């Protein structure tokens, strides 16, 4: 009788243990796969140089602004309303830039007869952010061709005399190559997205050509080319 009772107790114990094991297995859930936050905006902080070749060799001559690189400081804000698979992000953007050249006048008084030339550039852009290499092939390069319109306000003066100024408008073409920095620290990049909604950060180089003032006969041709280095974010 005692043996029978022990045997029954052992069976009960085994059966109870098995039931408990099955319950743990059912409760197990997989770790959710990471998906990035929506990516609709881009921000660029830029520094570079602009060469208004439309103003001729005189501008870059040693007598005037040849020894002054500018610089060209700007920022751009982009909006990407939609993404096309394997194509990338398409969107629009706007930006504001500032360049100033300042130099002594030949034959003038040092620190008094200084020539200055300044361009305040506003731009509207269409953009194609081709990030398929980064998204599909894990190659952290992004190409961004841009096309848009430059609206430049220019101002030039000698010393304290009243400045001359005007507006020049023209199309703008640009090509940007970006290196996404996510690969350096993927975990930190993911954390940046989860906490701040910043999908990607990047460094980039851009080359652009502006036709501001070139197509319009009555405007000062401040057209030219420039390069820019910068830091960008998409969010």
């Amino acid at each position, binding site marked *: 009788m005692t043996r029978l009772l022990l045997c029954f107790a052992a069976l009960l114990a085994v059966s109870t243990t098995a039931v408990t094991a099955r319950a743990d297995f059912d409760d197990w859930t997989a770790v959710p796969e990471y998906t990035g936050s929506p990516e609709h905006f881009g921000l660029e902080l830029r520094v570079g140089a602009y060469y208004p070749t*439309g*103003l*001729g060799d*005189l*501008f870059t001559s040693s007598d*005037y*602004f040849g020894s002054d690189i500018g610089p060209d400081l700007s920022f751009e804000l982009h909006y990407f*309303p*939609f993404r096309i698979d394997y194509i990338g992000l*398409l969107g*629009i953007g706007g930006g504001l830039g500032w360049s100033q050249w300042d130099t002594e*006048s*030949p*034959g*003038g*008084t*040092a*620190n*008094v*007869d200084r*020539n200055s*030339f300044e361009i305040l550039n506003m731009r*509207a852009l*269409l953009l194609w952010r081709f990030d398929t290499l980064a998204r599909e092939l894990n190659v952290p390069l992004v190409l961004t061709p841009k096309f*848009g*319109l430059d609206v430049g306000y220019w101002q*030039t*003066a*000698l*010393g*304290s*005399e*009243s400045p*001359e*100024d*005007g*507006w020049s*408008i*023209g*199309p703008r073409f640009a090509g940007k190559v970006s290196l996404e920095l996510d690969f350096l620290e993927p975990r930190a990049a993911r954390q940046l997205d989860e906490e701040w909604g910043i999908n990607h950060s990047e460094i980039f180089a851009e080359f652009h050509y502006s036709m501001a*003032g070139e*197509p*319009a*006969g*009555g*405007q*000062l*041709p401040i057209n030219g080319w420039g390069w820019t280095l910068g830091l960008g974010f998409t969010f």
Partner: protein
Amino acid sequence: MLRTHRLGPLAALAALAGALLLPALPAHAQIQAQILSFDGRTSVDLADLATQNGTPINFDECNGPAQVDWRFTNVDPNRANLSFFSGTGCDDASVRTDTNNTSCVDLEVTVAIEGATQVDVTLGVDRLINCDGMSGIDTIWALALDQPASEVTGTNQSASFPLAYDFVGPSAPTNLTASNGRSGSRLDWTSAGTTILRSEIFLISDGCTNGVANEDLDFSTSTPAQTIDGNVASGTVPFPTEDPFETEYAVAVRAFDQSSNPSELSGVQCVRKVPVTSFFEMYCESGESSADACTGGSCSVSAGRRSTAGLGWLMMFGLAALALRRVR
């Protein structure tokens, strides 16, 4: 009743202590002197006037004279007058009344206290210091007295404070050089000392002929064309824009010390407005651009001749945006 019994000895003790201590304490604290306002200065206090390194009283302020509003507090209302002296040991009646001792001078300024503990007095600076001096520091005493011979020692009814004055201007700037220019001239000179507060540049149009300063130049009636703050030995002065090229100017510099005492004028230099060509003028004159931007010699954009091509580009941009929207 019980409480009275307990407090009785304490009250007696306090009364005894008071009786012992009271004669040792002054009836009134030291008189406090304060400047409320000073003609021609936006702010000033006794510390500013205490040393030559502060902002001493200058000759114009003394000679003006600048009116100063003083406030004296903690004055014993039982005394008759607030009297002013200059020198040392003025709180000693024997010094004040000793006609052979000139260390303390009666400034002969007396204001009735009239039972007040606060006395406001307006005095010209020349009542307290001698405007015939050069530079120095005088100690001024304000004493609350019943009469000039009253003793103030031990009663603390006095206030003394130093008043610095500086009536001597700095040396004139030397080695002045000035350059020709189009919009102005740059001047360099050798500074006169280390306590220069500012320098003024004077410029007289047509003040020179063929590089020689005219004899009838009078800078005393001209206003400075430029003021350079600090102990700086260079500066620029703009030329009047309406003057034609080749106008000759006479320029000179005057320095001011920390008391705003002026120096003599520096030597006069002659400069000329020369036709320096700006980049934009050169650009327009070169004919490099076929654009309308350079017109009428003013190099300004002509609104009337502005091309409509810019508007065309704007329209193209708008159409492209519209097309993109339709694709979506």
